[in-house]
């Protein structure tokens, strides 16, 4: 069932996103071609015309790049919102468990977002053909500074952060769907109120931790200071621990967001 849900989800998302991806690629290609023409005609009468055209297509490409990411995010939000609306009567009648619906939507959302980002990066390189070599060099330099494990950490962290972002949006929509009317407004209000409440909760938590630390015996504080000074001599290990902690935090947040949203759509589903 999961594969089938994923297939229909990808088809529905692809129907809208593929033409946008294609449009972006076409404009990037045109910008690159005119850029090449401009460099060939350098110093001749054609230069101003080709330079204007190149700028025009580069602006169009930039607009398409923005539209690609925006359309991808909006479309994936809309797909989940529809699941909690009239389409839910069809989808939740299918012989599939609620977690499978959620997982299919989430996998498709993350997959299409990653694909959109990769296409945008590719198009940016294509449109900016002159700076391509320079950009490639900069990126390779950046990556060579980090170990391959560090790069993997960074990528995993970005994926987990993206999952968190989508799951947070799903949770807000699931809470918003509890309202009998004005569900979209309720979802938007939930997004801001819940976000603010979580921020305040973390600030309070850190403040309480700081206050608690002032009450610790001096010997404990001295011990910690020695520990951190010692750790500072092992920069890579500290970086590894920090990166691991961040991954664990994201994974924990993802787990909590998933569990609460799943509970809402399985036990407390409230279709209009």
């Amino acid at each position, binding site marked *: 069932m999961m594969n089938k849900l994923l297939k229909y989800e990808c088809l529905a998302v692809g129907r809208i996103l593929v033409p946008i991806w294609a449009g972006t690629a076409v404009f990037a290609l045109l910008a690159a071609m005119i850029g090449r023409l401009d460099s060939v005609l350098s110093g001749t009468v054609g230069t101003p015309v080709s330079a204007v055209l190149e700028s025009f297509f580069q602006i169009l490409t930039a607009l398409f790049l923005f539209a690609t990411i925006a359309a991808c995010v909006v479309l994936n939000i809309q797909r989940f919102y529809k699941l909690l609306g009239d389409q839910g009567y069809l989808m*939740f*009648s299918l*012989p599939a468990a609620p977690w499978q619906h959620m997982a299919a939507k989430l996998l498709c959302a993350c997959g299409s977002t990653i694909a959109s980002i990769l296409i945008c990066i590719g198009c940016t390189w294509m449109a900016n053909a002159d700076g391509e070599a320079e950009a490639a060099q900069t990126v390779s330099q950046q990556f060579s500074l980090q170990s391959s494990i560090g790069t993997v950490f960074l990528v995993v962290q970005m994926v987990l952060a993206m999952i968190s972002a989508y799951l947070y949006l799903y949770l807000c929509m699931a809470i918003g769907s509890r309202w009998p009317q004005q569900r979209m407004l309720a979802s938007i209000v939930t997004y801001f109120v819940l976000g603010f409440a979580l921020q305040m909760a973390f600030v309070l938590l850190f403040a309480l931790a700081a206050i608690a630390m002032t009450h610790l015996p001096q010997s404990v504080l001295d011990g910690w200071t020695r520990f951190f000074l010692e750790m500072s001599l092992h920069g890579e290990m500290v970086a590894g621990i920090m990166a691991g902690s961040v991954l664990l935090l994201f994974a924990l947040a993802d787990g909590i967001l998933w569990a609460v949203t799943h509970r809402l759509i399985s036990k407390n589903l409230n279709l209009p």
Partner: protein
Amino acid sequence: MMQVIYQAKGLCKRYGHKTALDNVNFEILPGRLVGLLGPNGSGKTTLLKLSAGLLSPNAGQILIGGQVPGVATKAITSYLPDRMALPVEMRVDDVVALFADFYADFDMPKASRMLADLKLDPRQRIGTMSKGTQEKMELCLAMSRAAKLYLLDEPLGGVDPAAREYILNTILRNYNEDAAVVISTHLVEDVERMLDEVLILKEGQLLTHRPVDELREESGMSLDEYFRTTFRV
């Protein structure tokens, strides 16, 4: 002895402080056409949503083929909601393929025949159809399954008399005869001739559940008259 296909035991559902269903108990045998009747707000849609697994009860339980509503019961239950739930951006053949993919009991030739009768172009988008055609298509898809239980929520709601006749004929000609059919409606007169049993809900409670012939004999009234008399304000 024939095994019960549907069983509601002490079923209760509340929305906040409002009780939608209050201790509802009944059983349905296979092969029966059951009318689920009651005025607005009596709990008909809630009962069908609970049966389709779209809601969870506060107390009591429903058993369909001996199982609580879930993935297994959804595979043997054909549910027609009281609204258009098909994705408007999809084409006719996409939705048919979706049903064929997810339901093992979906009869593709039957669906194609029924949709051809409606003169629907397989490449037509659902969003471009009239509301009436969308509802008919939804009904055709629901009735193209060889399900063990059909739950039809207001299939006659908001359609003209000619469409009503089409809908009733579609139900009668296409349901699996070993299955039970539950039809919720206000339009008692239209469905009276086809029903074997009637379930009448009043303010969330089961007022009566009995064969239609028995009710007619005992009350000396048609089902429509009985309904009007019971719910006269």
